[in-house]
């Protein structure tokens, strides 16, 4: 084994100098992007503490991925433990279940989901939870 430069041998950064932003904002395939949440597991945690959950290979924290406020609100709903586990249940079904249990889920989440169902540019991945296909 050569006794040369170990740090040079194991690349610390990607050759093209950082991670490039993905060209399309599809959220359904397996990618090692970081996702920004405010709150994370919301039991007992302060409501607006930004915590980057994942870090990419290469050591750099990724820039904010292209998803809008709507998706952010939906993800917050997914991560809230009060309404139960989110994996294996569609978002709308989970909302209806939470409403039937008397947990008063935020009504604007339902509006977003129903609005998506009727909209012409409905993106079906928004009906599935955050971890769909990844777990």
């Amino acid at each position, binding site marked *: 084994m050569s006794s040369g430069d170990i740090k040079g041998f194991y690349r610390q950064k990607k050759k093209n100098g950082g991670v490039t932003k993905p060209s399309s904002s599809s959220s359904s395939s397996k990618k090692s992007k970081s996702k920004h949440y405010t709150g994370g*597991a919301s*039991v*007992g945690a302060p409501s607006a503490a930004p915590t980057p959950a994942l870090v990419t290979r290469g050591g750099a924290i990724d820039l904010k991925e292209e998803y809008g406020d709507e998706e952010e609100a939906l993800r917050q709903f997914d991560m809230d*433990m*009060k309404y*139960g*586990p989110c*994996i*294996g*249940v*569609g978002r709308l*079904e989970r909302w209806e*279940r939470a409403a*039937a*249990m008397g947990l008063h889920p935020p009504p604007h989440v339902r509006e977003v989901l129903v609005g998506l169902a009727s909209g012409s540019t409905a993106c079906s991945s928004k009906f599935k939870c955050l971890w769909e296909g990844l777990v």
Partner: protein
Amino acid sequence: MADSEMGEATLERKLAVYRNLDERFVIREEKYKGQQFSHIYFMRLHHMRSQLQSLIPKWKPHLPVNTVLGLEEGKECIIVGTLYKHMKLKPSILDEYSKERSAIPLVKPHNFMSTDDHLILEDESGRVKLAGPMLAPSAFVTGIVIAVHGKETSEGDFFVEDFLEAGLAPQVDRPLDSREDKFVAFVSGLSVGTNAFNPLQFQLLVDHVTGHLGDENEQRISSKIVQLVIAGNSMHISHGFFSGQTVAPKDHAKLTEPIRELDIFLTQLVAALPVDIMPGCNDPANYSLPQQPLHRCLFAGASAYNTFVSCTNPHHFELDNVQFVGTSGQNIDDLYKYSDAKDKIEFMERTLRWRHLAPTAPNTLGCYPYVDKDPFLIESCPHVYFVGNQEKYETRLLQGPDKQLVRLISIPRFCETGVAVMLNLRNLECHALSFSTNL
């Protein structure tokens, strides 16, 4: 119905108003979308927690209720969560991958308990190991929801000073105005199709229940039987047939003969009185709970009668406003494997106190992965709770703190014991009917 030779009036069988309440156990609208069991546990925790939270103020009003994540060391509080019992002897599917694959099947002991078992309490926020002498792991199983009072120790365990189970659910009053005796007959474990099945013995039962046996006095007793419940394992289909391979033509008879034989007996029964038949672990029904009703096409003869009712397992029905709930035995048998009690009736009592028919489902007992409900939760305490396919006939009248009264019945396997059970609807008294062909 029978004419006596002296020309007296015909005896008419008594009637009772029957209502089938199996709807929550029937799998109808549910669609499997790849979900796991986290949802059924969530529904169970949510429901039981609200029950316990209404009881905690009467139990220990001055203590705060925390989540597991919110525990502080040394601070006395109450936590509510689902119990998980860590058992080192419990077979795990992962063991099959870690050891070498061998042709010898894994040994199945009767009971997987060991002295090392310990309990862990879990809610949505986290889990904590329970320590202290108050909770004996041998009396508990994974899947029940309780409240515990204690405090976090420096090791990070929760030292339990006291615990609260939900206790018997509230009970609807049983009608007390019935003046006449009406009997319900229970039988289970007929095992038609095995060597253990004795056709003469079962024919004696059929003849007695239908009134074809005995003198007028005995027929008078039989005319008071308003319902027969067959609690599982009526036939025994060899498990080799369940493997999914095509059945060779020479083996067709082994598959269909037991079913046909059972249908002949059932047709005699349903011609005389209402019969409820439940599936058991050896019947041609699905494996996981709730087992769905045996298909009508299996019973070409009996299904022509409107007295024939094929039911789910567990089975919930009402007769003259008396609530009956029962299973074919899988729930209690599974408790027996993972915990200890002085008899099967005590296991049955525990399920009522925990307000859950099958707490070990889905952990060690197969269960459908429901998303929006847990159908095994007991919301209203039944008046009669029966379990089939047990070793022997046992019964107890359980009294609850809120004037609940439950008749607990353990129905023995008929092919082994020749014993059926008779329950009097008027006073919930129970006795055994024993049939023997040994001369």
